[in-house]
């Protein structure tokens, strides 16, 4: 292909798209509309399936029933209380795994020998089903929310470590030289050069960490019957109260959406 042909295929970026930061409002609205449309369509299919008994209502609640149950549970506190417990556990696990993961990832990047020695181990552990270790935090911390936080933190810290090292290792050498030319202090370099340059990869690590925090917290609550929404889902399932099960699941989705939006916002703030 000729250079002219290639140039003809590549559209020049619009000024709005080229600028770092938030995407333009119209594009955001279009994306949101597309997401809502697909979600509503899927829920409508499930609703019709349950209503016509193609899907067994004993195992799946109608989405309208689950949504109404979630709203009612929040209003009367039957699900609001457990949601707050889960939110606390998720927030604590995210802070712990985020701080530990960023710190350890920085160390693995800063000291290359450490990185070469331990990164394969971290990657290996990340691939292992760590939820199977759930009895260990129960033994150490007892049947408390601390055990839930410990389990979720251990599961989530690994991707944060890996992506932090990868993000820092991927910084353009020119940027490091610029920081040296301007004689930036370590903190200034971190704030103005390293963090913005590595932000997309760090945010990916944190987003993955958040996913693992949610999985860890809800699984641990479910398996050990401790804490918030996972325990509620377990109890409701044992009583075959599928409306309550799916109402709690709706709130887990709401929680996940809120926290993912928060991490996205943090990423945008750092890059700005």
């Amino acid at each position: 292909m000729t250079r002219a042909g290639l140039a003809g295929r590549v559209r020049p970026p619009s000024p709005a798209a080229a600028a770092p930061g938030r995407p333009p409002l119209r594009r955001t609205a279009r994306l949101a509309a597309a997401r809502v449309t697909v979600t509503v369509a899927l829920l409508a299919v499930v609703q019709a399936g349950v209503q016509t008994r193609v899907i067994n209502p004993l195992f799946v609640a109608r989405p309208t029933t689950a949504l109404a149950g979630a709203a009612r549970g929040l209003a009367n506190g039957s699900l609001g209380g457990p949601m707050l417990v889960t939110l606390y556990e998720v927030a604590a696990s995210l802070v712990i795994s985020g701080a530990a993961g960023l710190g350890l990832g920085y160390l693995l990047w800063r000291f290359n020998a450490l990185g070469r020695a331990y990164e394969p181990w971290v990657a290996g552990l990340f691939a292992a089903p760590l939820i199977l270790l759930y009895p260990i935090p129960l033994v150490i911390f007892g049947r408390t929310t601390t055990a839930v936080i410990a389990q979720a933190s251990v599961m989530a810290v690994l991707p944060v470590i890996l992506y932090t090292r990868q993000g820092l290792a991927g910084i353009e050498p020119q940027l490091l030289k610029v920081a040296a030319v301007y004689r930036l202090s370590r903190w200034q370099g971190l704030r103005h050069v390293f963090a913005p340059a590595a932000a997309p990869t760090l945010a990916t690590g944190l987003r993955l960490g958040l996913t693992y925090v949610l999985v860890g917290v809800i699984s641990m609550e479910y398996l050990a019957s401790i804490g918030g929404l996972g325990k509620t889902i377990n109890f409701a399932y044992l009583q075959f109260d599928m409306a309550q099960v799916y109402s709690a699941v709706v709130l887990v989705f709401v929680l996940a959406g809120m926290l993912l939006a928060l991490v996205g916002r943090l990423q945008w703030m750092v890059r700005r």
Partner: protein
Amino acid sequence: MPRSRLLAGLGCAALVLSAAACSNPTATQPAAGTTPLNVIVPLSGNFTSGLPVYVALKEGFFKKEHLSVTVVNTTGGATNVAAVLAGKGAVGVDTGPVSVIAADQHGANLKIIGADTTGMDILFFTKGTGPIKSIYGLAGKKVGFSAPGSSSEVALTQINSDLKAKGMPPAIGEPIGGPPMQLTAVMTNQVSAGFTAAPNLFSQVQSGSLRLLTSLSSYPGYSDVAVRVIFASGSYISSHPTQVREFLTAWSQAWAFVFAHHDQAMADWQKGAKLTEPVSVLATGYNYYTPTTQRLTPIDGLSRDVSDAVSLGVLKAPLTSGQLAGYVDTTFAGPRGSSG
């Protein structure tokens, strides 16, 4: 990689996958002239479910009734009911009646077809070297039970009634699971006491590492209450009434054999269920269970089960005797030819 080697590799992989897809290690081919039946059994080491099933298999009581039974294990309680609802088996044994009724209230088509165990058989234990010597030492302490609405939670409410009568704070219930998980939780100080039923964990009781805090006499109000039942899916009962009757007949014959031939029954159970406990430990179950506790009918005390479930929040409202009767069908548990 040469093309021939690649093709050979793919061929081998396809062979292995197809062999894996065709094999099912737990399923057995039904014998000629018999009807296959999957039975949901919580734990094979339970005296009240594993023992009669393996004795019936070993002594040929199922075969005599033209049934080819496959045992499907679960962790008990509501998971038994879920297994039947998911079609893994048609009949479930050793299940709390409240789990069956709760599922039926949400649209599951299930029927209680006989009593499994009558009389509360839950035993609470603590560490053998621990400071707790009686149930009164459990005041304000964490105590394990299996799951909401289970017989172990009901037993704990009785302990709490005794504590309340003495002006002591109640024990705090923790839903942990079956006896193996209770043992771990107690030995690692997650809870002060857990529950079991004879002869589960009796090796540890005999060696002194565990101390029993309750006995059968701890629950005088439950001597005539069916704490666990046998149930089946309504559709299976409609389509296979003969097989339901045959299963219950074999079940009764197995229990008769168990109480008539202790040694042989223990040997059948130990071998069939691949249990590691010595026969002397397994046989301690005879101190707790009798032909009366293991009767199939009558199914007594279901109203007590339901009122407990309501007070524990597992069922929303009490049931009238008419409503309760709708969950039960004992016509198949009677003598052959009576009905059904």
